[in-house]
């Protein structure tokens, strides 16, 4: 890995303890540790900034406050504070030339054992908090904190080490891809983004472009040469939220298949994957937290296979059984099925009838994305959810 990408750089006030698990996961050559604040002291700061400049992924601890020592009044005490201060620190050391390097050239990741602090979650009993925990909502918390991603150090929150590795490797690969594209800023931003997402304009590609535009990509930033703005949009909006790309559960729903059944049925999944391979997303971050497919590609396949009767439920169920190679495939027998979110607005594999659901509008849900659906009976039991119901549905939960 160290040969393919620039290194992963970790900044931590307890680097001796935090570094070993990352080294174990990513390889000794791939990770560089920086001790905070010691390595930022004037004597070694140029060397430190040099390491950061080479990073493809910069991991920064969230809580940088050392209770055993005094901190200077302008010293950043949080990871996001340090990331915001880095350009200034670099400028103070004549280490940056804004004229030639106006944009960051790496992915920034908060790596913390206390991620819930980033989401303003107050977990004290009896406290009525509007916030939701971080796990499963990393994209939301990252967006709130103006970083590319957040990753938990905590054992209880952490996915297996190989998944940590996959997240960081995918990030590093995406950064490398974005930076290799020297045409960003010179060709049209739509074209640059389309190339980054490896989308051909043939066939259903035109429809996919429209669906990308519906998700409001940062075209101005891309046009001005900020390659990583596109990567951040992918991480925070296009990949985690429903829209131009389908997760497995969306593909299942489009075929009226039970998403949980499909996910747990390897043989059916393998068969289906073969049939929908032409719609698979293969652009930047294509393996980031699971496979995805172009919605336009899946729509086109269903249209073709059903001869335009994509809305006909018996026809769809028959197609689903054919594509999964399983005549007993578990299908959905609802008139207007929707995928619902859980009480912390994480997407789930649960399907419910639209008439039994309402939409809620969490503060951190992108306005360009369909607001999430949630069951009416669950909303009626939760004052927190009741307060978030979209105005058009408010009469349905009274």
């Amino acid at each position: 890995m160290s040969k393919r990408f620039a290194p992963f750089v970790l900044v931590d006030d307890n680097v001796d303890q935090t570094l070993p698990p990352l080294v174990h996961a990513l390889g000794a050559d791939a990770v560089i540790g920086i001790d905070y604040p010691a390595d930022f002291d004037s004597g070694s700061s140029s060397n430190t900034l040099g390491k950061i400049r080479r990073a493809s992924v910069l991991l920064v601890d969230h809580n940088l406050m050392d209770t055993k020592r005094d901190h200077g009044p302008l010293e950043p005490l949080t990871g996001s504070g340090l990331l915001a201060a880095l350009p200034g620190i670099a400028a103070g050391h004549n280490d940056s030339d804004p004229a030639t390097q106006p944009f960051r050239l790496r992915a920034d990741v908060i790596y913390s054992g206390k991620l819930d602090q980033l989401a303003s979650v107050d977990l004290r009993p009896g406290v009525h908090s509007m916030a939701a925990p971080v796990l499963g909502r990393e994209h939301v918390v990252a967006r709130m904190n103006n970083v590319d991603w957040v990753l938990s150090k905590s054992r209880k929150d952490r996915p297996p080490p190989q998944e940590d590795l996959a997240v960081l490797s995918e990030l590093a690969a995406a950064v490398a891809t974005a930076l290799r594209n020297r045409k960003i800023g010179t060709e049209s931003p739509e074209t640059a983004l389309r190339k980054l997402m490896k989308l051909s304009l043939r066939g259903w590609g035109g429809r996919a472009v429209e669906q990308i535009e519906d998700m409001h990509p940062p075209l101005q930033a891309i046009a001005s040469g900020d390659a990583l703005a596109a990567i951040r949009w992918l991480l925070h909006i296009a990949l985690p939220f429903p829209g131009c790309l389908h997760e497995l559960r969306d593909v299942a729903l489009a075929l009226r298949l039970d998403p949980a059944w499909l996910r747990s049925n390897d043989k059916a999944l393998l068969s289906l994957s073969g049939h929908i391979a032409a719609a698979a997303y293969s652009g930047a971050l294509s393996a980031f937290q699971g496979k995805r497919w172009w919605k336009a590609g899946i729509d086109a396949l269903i249209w073709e296979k059903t001869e335009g009767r994509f809305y006909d439920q018996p026809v769809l169920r028959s197609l689903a059984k054919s594509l999964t190679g399983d005549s007993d495939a578990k299908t959905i027998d609802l008139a207007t099925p929707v995928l619902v979110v859980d009480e912390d607005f994480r997407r789930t594999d649960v399907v419910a009838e639209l008439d039994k659901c309402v939409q809620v509008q969490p503060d951190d849900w992108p306005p360009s994305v369909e607001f999430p659906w949630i069951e009416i009976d669950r909303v009626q039991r939760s004052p927190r959810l009741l307060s978030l119901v979209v105005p058009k549905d408010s009469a349905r939960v009274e």
Partner: protein
Amino acid sequence: MSNSSNSYQPPRFKYQDVIDELEAVAKVADSLLAPNNAHIIPQTIDALEGSRLHDGFYNWQLNQPITTRRSEGEHHPGSNGPYDLEGRLCYSWRIKPEKQGRKKTPAQSFVVEGNISTRMELFGKQRAHDAVDERLAAWRFEIGDNVSPGVFFHSQVSWHIPASVHNSDCDIPRFPCFLMTPGECLDFLLGELFQIEWPKLQQAHSTDVKRWSASQGYRMSRLLEQSRKVIEASAGVSPWIALKTWKPDDSGFMLR
């Protein structure tokens, strides 16, 4: 045979259903509507929203038609139809907001009474002929009232009136129909003019179609169920005449 006019109850609609439908159709159909139409649907939705606080009857109408882009032979599935066509739709609905409780609480539903008509027209020409555009067809989807001769939910086509006729107010024939709201009528018009593109757009915008499809589906199902009941209960008269003379006696029969 049918309920008498004494038991007649005008149909009720939920504001939110009618608004959701129009919003969704406008969004999904954006590329099929004429470019200068962007403001028309939001304005008419605002007008309907405003009527929620209105006392008494309100005329919800569209004077400037919603116009489609030109369909170039797309009225045939292979886009090889002989006509280039442009559709226009306007409507006039006399509604009464059902206000409950405090006077300043917006109504959630309305009843329809009197003139409930959505008019569609096709303008265009045969592609093979270098002619100017003419009005080629016109029809209306309408809802009757207590005294209308039926069928209650119906469509009408415009007559070709000879020059010798002075009074053009002939309102037959009335074909049975189960499309009612302006959103549904626009759905119909677009489906005729853009046989492939309109369903494809609905598939592409499936998230926007969900709400609209649920409310439209419910209304259509209830109306068809009701029609089946009337047909099955007909005695001493043909099922058609039973259906023709039927009027709603439960104003909420189409409310979800």
